[in-house]
């Protein structure tokens, strides 16, 4: 039982994205099986000892306990991020692009074009990065938030104003210039595996679809 308890507590610490208090750890158990606080404390002490030889250590902070990579290993961890910085998903980039071109736009506007729900985390990431902001609410039922791009957005993409965004008709050329190009491969991360070109030829945009692009985007 003791070993099982240790495994459970370790698993909790390694999946929670915050420090866990003893009460929070206890709350995971049904009341009947809940270990006493002292037992949980002992278990945590045991985990701390086990970590002695390892890359992580158990830290007690104000809100509880958390497992943290040892300070002296910080350099290695940072190298990992340098080598491969995190990337945004295609869903996020499409959402941002749609806001840029159709602003002010609601979540519903974006969902209409994309055909799937826009996740809250995408909107939050874009707001956190200060690339978009809420400019108001549309006066329709539910009063949805209207999103627009920010000054920081223009700065980041080196644009003086939104009118510097290329017209949609030019995007076609861009796509053709980059068939399975570096954009798609490294940044969008769509092509995690090397593309097998067995049955495939080009990944260009369908002519007809492109011809129809400006229409569907501009009437907003």
């Amino acid at each position, binding site marked *: 039982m003791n070993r099982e308890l240790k495994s459970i507590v370790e698993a909790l610490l390694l999946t929670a994205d915050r420090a866990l208090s003893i009460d929070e750890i206890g709350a995971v158990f049904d009341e009947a099986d809940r270990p006493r606080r002292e037992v949980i404390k002992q278990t945590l002490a045991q985990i701390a000892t086990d970590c002695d030889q390892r890359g992580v250590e158990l830290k007690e902070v104000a809100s509880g306990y958390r497992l943290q990579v040892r300070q002296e290993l910080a350099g290695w961890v940072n190298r990992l991020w340098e080598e491969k910085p995190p990337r945004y998903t295609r869903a996020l980039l499409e959402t941002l692009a749609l806001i840029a071109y159709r602003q002010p736009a609601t979540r519903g506007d974006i969902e209409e074009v994309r*055909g799937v729900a826009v996740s809250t985390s995408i909107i939050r990431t874009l707001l956190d990065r200060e690339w978009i902001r809420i400019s108001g609410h549309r006066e329709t039922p539910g009063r949805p938030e209207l999103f627009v791009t920010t000054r920081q957005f223009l700065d980041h993409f080196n644009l003086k104003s939104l009118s510097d965004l290329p017209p949609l008709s030019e995007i076609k050329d861009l796509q053709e210039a980059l068939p399975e190009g570096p954009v798609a491969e490294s940044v969008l991360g769509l092509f995690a595996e090397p593309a097998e070109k067995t049955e495939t030829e080009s990944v260009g945009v369908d002519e007809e679809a492109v011809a129809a692009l400006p229409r*569907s985007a501009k009437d907003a």
Partner: protein
Amino acid sequence: MPAGRQQLAIAYIAGTAVSELPGDLYIPPNALEVYLEAFEGPLDLLLYLIKRQNIDILEIDVAEITDQYMAYIELMQAGQFELAAEYMVMAAMLAELKSRILLPRTEDAEEEEDDPRMQLIRRLLEYERYKLAAEDLDRLPRLDRELRQARADPPEFERTIPEPKVELADLLAAMANALRQAELFEHHQVQLESISTEQKISHLLRYLEKDRFLSLGSFLDPREGRLGVVVTFLAVMELMRNAMVEIVQSDVFGPIHLRLAAGRDAS
């Protein structure tokens, strides 16, 4: 409260008494919707009908299954539930299959390879394979359900996780992609637009009353595609069943003509 036997609740659906049956239905319409949503299409429905009888796909009795399938389709239509076009296509296919089986078979058709059930059985087996594969897939342990990536916090003061980099080109590529997909999406919507059998029936009746005797072909609109043919066919079947039209075909494979049934003249 209405008087008489209507007053009696026939069934309780989600706690609500249902006292009036829609036509000859035994299923309240809202239950039908739940019912239809439970199926992933005509093949799934067929598979269910087969399995419910505990028979092997290989031993299906096409006539029996066709009747059951048609019965379901009818129930669903009577419930004013707009059926996906695919259910109609399957209905037509089954009807055709059944008629072929009922026809006297020629010598060379005796060979099993020409067993008209073959194509249907193959499709059912193939669909079932992937239906099971999907269930297997769903049972695999997966991240954020049975599995969690173990993560520890990075060391406190050295936290320099860079922000993801994005170039303008990436953004534009994403825009092009979103719009291209939207275009496909809209295109697909148009394709899915259904032609209802009811509309077809009233259309047929309108023209028959005017012209009295018309070939089946004259009702077909090329713009409606294959679905249009199927729906027109179903509409004619429906009218025949209700003895509202008569069909005349002078030769085998000759043109089929329609006219209003006797006593059905324009009122």
